[in-house]
């Protein structure tokens, strides 16, 4: 086996471009996912009514469907079913945001419900209005409880971002495939890309584990 790692240096701009696209995809999906997810979480907390039903349908659908199916569905069926035809990049952002939102809604709901009943009662008993009960007591504690699973959501989105190479978004995997087939240096490119993904993902899964252990220690 003869490998030629200098080829990575030769194509460094393409690889960095792919890396940047991957990070942008994940960042955009996270931001819009938080917004959509927070709304869907509110819907879930209502426990009845149109927003509850809509949120439940949304969360169940987008958590249960394989991400691959979603990406292809939006990309191939979107132009027929909708009057707007999203580009590959838009499809990537939309599908990842919708998935992020569905998972984040569940994370947020679990976080809020992990705050004990005693905290609600104490906050009300000291005379806080409902608004400040949420702002001062419930949300700060819920956010803490949400941190480990939120970090895992980031790893999940980075992993998902590779899928949109299939519809032609020029992120890391797309670049590795293209460059690999141009130069027949698959080994070098895919190894490099695997390392980059590891560098993106590993800190977040470590953070998740660390925070979780830390919180368990505080409780125990």
């Amino acid at each position, binding site marked *: *086996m003869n490998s030629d790692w200098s080829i990575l240096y030769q194509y460094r701009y393409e690889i960095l471009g792919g890396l940047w696209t991957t990070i942008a995809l994940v960042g955009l999906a996270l931001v819009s996912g938080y917004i959509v997810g927070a*709304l869907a979480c*509110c*819907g879930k*907390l*209502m*426990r009845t*009514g*149109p*927003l*509850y*039903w*809509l949120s439940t349908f949304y969360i169940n*659908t987008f958590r*249960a*469907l*394989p*991400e*691959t*199916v979603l990406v*292809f*569905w939006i990309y*191939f*069926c979107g132009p*027929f*079913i*909708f*009057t*707007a035809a999203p580009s590959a990049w838009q499809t990537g952002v939309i599908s990842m945001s919708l998935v992020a939102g569905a998972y984040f809604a569940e994370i947020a709901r679990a976080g*809020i*419900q*992990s705050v*004990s*009943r005693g905290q*609600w009662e104490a906050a009300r008993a000291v005379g806080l209005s*409902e608004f400040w*009960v*949420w702002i001062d007591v419930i949300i700060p504690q819920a956010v803490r409880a949400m941190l480990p699973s939120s970090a895992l959501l980031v*790893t999940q989105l*980075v*992993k*998902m971002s*590779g*899928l949109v*190479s*299939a519809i032609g978004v020029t992120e890391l*995997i797309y670049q590795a*495939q293209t460059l*690999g087939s141009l130069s027949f240096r*698959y*080994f070098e490119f*895919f*190894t490099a*890309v*695997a390392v980059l*993904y*590891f560098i993106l*993902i*590993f800190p977040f*899964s470590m953070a998740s584990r660390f925070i979780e252990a830390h919180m368990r220690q505080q409780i125990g």
Partner: protein
Amino acid sequence: MLASKKALRQSLPWSYIISTVIALAVIATVLNFVNFKAIAALDFTVVYQYRYTFLWAIGTTLGITSTAIVIGLIVGIVLAVLIIQGPRPVRMVVTAYVEIWRNTPLIVQLFWVHFAMPVVTGVNTTALQSGLIAMTMQSAAYLTDIARTGILAVPKGQYEAAEALGLPTWSKWVDIILPQALRIVIPPLATIAVGFFKASAILSLLSVGELMTQTKNIATYTHKPIEVMTFVGLVYWALGYSFGSLAYKLEDILGSDQRARR
């Protein structure tokens, strides 16, 4: 949990009106973009027409998933025992393997196995073989972690009892520790299995020939992507959902079993 739900509900009476308005606005926005002519023209007979292809493809998906889980579980148990008991260098190698395969995307692993590994081994694999290898190696990594958690959850007294009885090492593991650990890991194992069933759709990026590959083929060939992909989405959803409920049932049964034994 349940009690806090009640405390929470007190907080939300006024918000029902606002939430209803938001829900209607969302629905209206989506509907505004829908092309109803296209929906009226949908023709789902294509699904029936290709029923045998679909059935075969579903079988392939289930086959790949279960192969990956079963082999992964066996490998995972061995690796977990190595992590707990093996000599330090072995522990480090196994831990590195687990971390690498858990912290990279399946799709990269798939392409790496298919395109890069032949450069190392000199053996070319078919798409299906590559898919199986990648899925199995990843499931082994996840299941090592789960098996390890399960094994460590077995109370220390059980190890001490096994040693006090003078059982040989293999018997300690096979007769005492692993059967108890297996009980503990069944719920997370089921969750992982559903996850892998979903993830197997990624193999279509290599055209492995499982359900999503055939879906794309049929959709392209018949020019009916909406019918085909919506149907397949339902299939994935229904199968994943039934596995999920099965897992809950299993958890219930095992849980009550353990309670009864206490």
